[in-house]
């Protein structure tokens, strides 16, 4: 968590804006609002929200760095939260066993039992804060802080699509097979992404997910 808003360069390809304070829903709603405003700036190609942050890719980089830095720092304080009336999707999850190879690591780190981890994980309605990581993947807010478990020291080479994981203070669901540095605690089957759809990702910022306990394997 940072104390003041920060703007930094990602080479000359993009600029990263990080909001100060806790990464709560209200701050994220202001990120969405800033994204909508910045999309209209002529030098910006795409606005990509992150967790309490916003990446803006450039059409062409501005000649002077200060112009974009000042523009973002001046815009932020005046930005009002953009509330979205999104959908809520229920995801049936098989926790533990082969579906959740790192459930034991979360148990070990948090000091909670398997049933408590599952109950705390399946209780909230998780707002979709942003998409990233891989096609259709949603970064979710609202993970119970008691479940926070650091990312793995060595990422796993292949975690299947549908993997439900915890990384740091965040939780998410993989939309396709691939490597992951997060702790996989369960699995779900749902198609999150299809490039043939009019809007290729199933979910968007402002929607929400609820995990429903289908089974717990020990």
């Amino acid at each position, binding site marked *: 968590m940072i104390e003041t808003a920060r703007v930094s360069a*990602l*080479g000359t390809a993009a600029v990263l804006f990080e909001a100060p304070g806790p990464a709560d829903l209200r701050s994220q709603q202001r990120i969405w609002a800033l994204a909508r405003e910045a999309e209209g700036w002529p030098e910006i190609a*795409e606005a990509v929200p992150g967790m309490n942050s916003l990446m803006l890719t450039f059409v062409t980089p501005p000649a002077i760095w200060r112009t974009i830095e000042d523009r973002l720092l001046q815009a932020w304080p005046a930005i009002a939260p953009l509330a979205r009336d999104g959908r809520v999707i229920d995801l049936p999850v098989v926790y533990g066993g082969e579906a959740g190879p790192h459930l034991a690591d979360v148990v070990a780190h948090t000091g909670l039992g398997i049933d408590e981890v599952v109950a705390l994980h399946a209780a909230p309605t998780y707002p979709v804060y942003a998409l990233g990581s*891989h096609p259709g993947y949603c970064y979710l807010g609202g993970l119970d802080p008691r479940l926070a478990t650091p990312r793995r020291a060595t990422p796993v080479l292949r975690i299947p699509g549908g993997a439900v994981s915890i990384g740091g203070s965040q939780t998410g669901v993989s939309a396709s097979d*691939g*490597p992951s540095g997060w702790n996989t605690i369960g699995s779900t089957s749902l198609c999150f992404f299809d490039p043939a759809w009019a809007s290729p990702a199933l979910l968007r910022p402002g929607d929400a997910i609820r995990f429903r306990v289908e089974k717990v394997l020990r």
Partner: protein
Amino acid sequence: MIEILATSGLATVQDGGRHGSLRYGVGVAGAMDPMALAAANLLLGNEADAAAIEIPIFPFRVRFTAPCGFALAGADCAARLDGRALLPWWAYRAPAGAELVLEVPHPGACRAYLALAGGVDVPAVLGSRSTQLRGAFGGHEGRTLRVGDVVRAGRPEAAVDEFGVVPPALDMPRTQDGMRAIRVLPAAEYGCFTAASRAAFWAGDWKITAQSDRYGYRLAGEALVFERPVEMLSHGIVPGVIQVPPNGQPIVQMRDAQPSGGYPKFGTVIDADLWRLGQAPIGSRIRFVETDWAEAVAAGDETAAWLAEAGRLIGLRRLERGA
């Protein structure tokens, strides 16, 4: 039209990249050496960012099943067409039935680009013909090429004049002590590393380990040390971002990297030098050079100007030769 006769793996269809879908979690993909891609395409009269085949592992053999113009750029892989030795960074006309063989490249570069007249003809997905491996879409059926695959050219019969272009690395060399010198702009967490680490990063050699590919280059060198532990939230990143996991060995995110990440960032390789890095072979060593915003923007202008001038001269030549 070409048929793949032999491939050692990891050859994919790539164009200039898939832009505008980062907010759906779709990374850019695209050619690791966009300068070579552009040169090969321009020689054929294609758009500079048209789709071509990127070949990182050799040998690679194809047969032209119909007459077709093609061009090769990137690594010099001692190419032969029906046994005839070809020149690198050159356009040719292949007759029907001709076999093209690409061998292990001369050292110094590692990826070759085979462009076809009219561009590689695969459907565009989300605005690009690049292969998105994670998620399996785009390019040729969303996967690497296999023996027996047939790849179509957009305009195989389009006129081609056989000539070449000077590799841009010769016109714009950037080396230090015989190693590629790659310019890096410091990133947000640059100050989270000890002063000694930062100095060592700029002063030392970095080896491109065997665990390096289109997703990222894992570098071996003096481990970077954090002043204090950093746990970050997921945020957007771009190819070139140098992430540092807890073990201190940097990973340069490349074209197939995730569009977001949560590791601390030391710096970002500038866009204008990514093509150089994309040709650095496994096992080679590189140096990093600290740069600032103005220099990085100027570097981008320099590479764009080289391409524009090459494209202009190529266009004039093709015109006067009736191509």
